[in-house]
């Protein structure tokens, strides 16, 4: 199993969610996150005074899928989240040891 963690632009969430649902990924965890990468935050001027946005708001989407699906999920996220401009985000893929569904105690792929 793989855990795929994507940091995307907030307004891309809907598209990413729809694309993933369409390809058969049914569960995901979404959170509001802030951070920066190569963008390094940016400066804005308000009424002549500059204020710094050190951390840029992003949305984190986490999904766990069987190994066979992982590559397709990554491609799908890229397709949905890409705008081509700076700050489009990143995708991290992790190997996952185990998953347990709390209610039933099922494990592995069955618990997804």
């Amino acid at each position, binding site marked *: 199993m793989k855990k795929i963690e994507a940091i995307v632009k907030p307004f891309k*969430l809907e598209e990413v969610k729809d694309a993933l649902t369409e390809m058969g990924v049914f569960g995901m965890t979404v959170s509001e996150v802030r951070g920066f990468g190569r963008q390094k935050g940016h400066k804005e001027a*308000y*009424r002549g005074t500059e204020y710094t946005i050190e951390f840029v708001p992003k949305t984190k989407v986490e999904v766990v899928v069987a190994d066979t699906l992982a590559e397709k999920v990554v491609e799908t996220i890229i397709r949905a989240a890409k705008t081509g401009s700076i700050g489009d985000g990143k995708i991290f893929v992790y190997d996952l040891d185990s998953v347990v569904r709390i209610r039933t105690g099922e494990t592995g792929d069955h618990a997804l």
Partner: protein
Amino acid sequence: MLRKVPDRQSAIHWTRAALDVSRQAIEAAHAHGATGMEVVTALSDLADEILRDLAHAHREGSSDVPGIALVALGGYGRRELAPYSDIDLMFLYAPDCEAQAGVLSTAILHHLWDLGFQVGHSLRTIVDCVALGQSDLTVRTALMEARRLAGDEALFEAFTRRYRADVMQKGVQEFIGAKLEERRQEYSRYGATNFLLEPNLKKGRGGLRDLHLLVWTALARHGTSSFEDLTAKDLLSADDTRSLQEAREFLWRTRNDLHFHAGRAQDVLTFEEQIRIAGLRGFTDLPHLLAVEQFMQQYYRHSTRVCDLATRFTSQALRGSARQRLAALWPGRRIEQWFVLTQDQITVPTELRKEALTDGARVIRLFQLAQQQGLRVNDDLVQELPERLGTIPDLDFLSEDARRNFLAILSGPDRVSDTLAAMHRVCLLERLIPAFGTVHGLMQFNAYHKYTVDHHSLLAVGQAEELGDGKSMLSQVYREIKRKDLLHLALLLHDLGKGQEDDHSLVGERIAQETAARLGLNEHETQLVMMLVRDHLLMAHTAFRRDLSDDKVVLRFARKVGTPEALKMLYVLTAADIAAVGPGVLTQWKETLLGELYVKTLEELDGEEGAEATEAVGFRRDEVRRDVLRAAGDRFAPAWLARHLEGWPDRWLFTMSVERIVAHLSWMARVEERSALVDVRHDDATGTTEYAVYARETLIPGIFSKIAGVLAAKGVQILDAQIATFVDGVVVDVFRVTDPDCPVDARARRFTAVSGAIVGVLEGRYTVEDLLRDSGRFGRAAQSVPLRTPTVVQVDTETSERYTILDVFADDRQGLLYVITRAIFDLGLSVHAARISTKLDQVVDVFYVTDQAGHKIIAPDRCTVISEAITARIEAFLGAAQDARPQAQRISCAEKITGRKP
């Protein structure tokens, strides 16, 4: 039921079964509609019976062992056991019976544990009880409700006498104060408001604990806790007593439901349980109101009542001390004939109430004074108000005075939310805004909101107010808003459309319109409040779900919002609304995105005058001026230069290079009375050309419009334009353009031709219309636009002190700027500053205008005329350009503008 059985093991087996049977019987009675009181009493009786039997059994038949008594404490002492309540027991013993008491308690407690009871227990002598009661608040409280179950009666009576004299009657004031404080801490853990969507029935605000607080206070202060006694002593009205009994019954019965169903002491009324119990109580879903919402509305009504009554009763008892009674006798300050102000309260003397409380405006004035003076409205008066208000006719709340007082309350500056909440508690708010009555305790059944609609709305006002002191951009913007009354009103109204069948934003907009009419707001104010309510989700949706780097997104939003003042209000309203959903919901994440959209939109809506005189701005201004002086050297007369630099608009100072400023200055210095100068610069990097035109204001009226006309006639496309007027009447108009028709090698000739035409028109040698006729290009459909977005012209009288600001949104078309500026000119307005920008196929133009005499236009009628006239001219122009067969009216309009026969 229970008999003495010698073998302990078998006794347990037997009593367990018996206990189960008895408990099941009680549960069945509950299911068949037994009242909450019947159930808690039956459960207490059952426990009593078991304990008496156990006491009897373990004393081996000698039923009156002297020196030991079995005593129930706390809720069990009150005979109020819920199905899974703890049982609080005390073994009271005479000092010489310690050993026997130990043996007996061990035997009984083991039994109880084996039976599955949760038991709290203690072994104490009378002296222990007194000592602990004096030192430990919890023990003191529990012992107040001691009840003998079995054993030495004389011993128990001796305890009661001693305890009453040495503990209960000492330090009553401190005791009540301490209980109140303890309760406050509980509030902060279990819900600071009784409007939580998943309330704790026992410890939450408005829960059973509040009833207990009232009972303990009554016991401590008045020596009795029965509602009947308290009513007889006139400490509670008959009405209060009924409310308390109904609420207690509701809370008991619901809690019994929770316990029985969960099989444990479950006191939190979760969403799941709410749905289940609403069904049990026979509520059914209505199209606009779910069963569960109806059920919870009942809960909120009861819990509000409990909380209010308990708070009032306790604070009355607190103030009942001799010293404070004396203070109360101290004559207060009498003002405005009816009101008396004391140190911390405002009231109307009892003998005047009947007469005074017949006038709507006066009742509102009472709350207004309380707000201004930082006082609390007297508790008795609060109690009396709902009934009194019922006798005041509706019309009375619509009087001029009533409206004024209410709007003053909304303006603040302080305690707006608190005052509105106080008005809501006495049902006054719903007399002013009838829709507020329908959301009283209306829950929002989703996992997102934490509070009921009415509470959420009041909280939202409070959230906005809290911004007042902050340092964030949000706080800064809140402080800049001039009409805070309208913002607060919109916050109060924004969700009132909930609980009805249609989209709540649209229902809310209607409510806003009705409310504005009731409050006598003018057309502009009404539109603003309606927009804020209708679009209260727009900014959040745009900021969180749309690409803010896409100009189209920002433009669409800007067009809907219209003016900087409206934008500021919407920004604060959005943030306050989110913050009022629950603690921690307005995250930094959301704030950043909202802030980004705010700044980007403000850039579109705001023109030149935006920069505030903040310290940082002033500092930067001085810095740029110093640089310019240095770069200018001795090219200008020092006095002339100083005077001119003083008048430079911030926008120019901050965005232009020092070289460019010096260049402008040297052209300005050459402007003469009867001539115009044009400076042309081409930027190869962007392929754009800048025409800077310098002239005296007095040269010819409508300079800006005329230049726009010349550029249109010459087929030049205007990207943006800026205008500034300087100290001695020199105007500088800078147009950045592209020139699609001009081949590169013909550029120089072209620049000369365009410049020459501008100078010719400004110096009055020929007119724009002459040029247009010659070129024949004007009004030609330059591009086909299949879908037009409607033209919007906003007149903003709020943002600038000296100018009226026009925000124009329209589809772009060659020559459009001329049409707009010509319309402005024809309306007799002069343009002092402007920012023209074209993004994609949309223009957003901002004009700072005054009338010819230099006065800001504020009359609403005049503003409407201006907006309609400009809109009509733009529509006519765009329509004529697009439509081959324009309507008659449009032809005449277009003809006037273009000077061409169609």
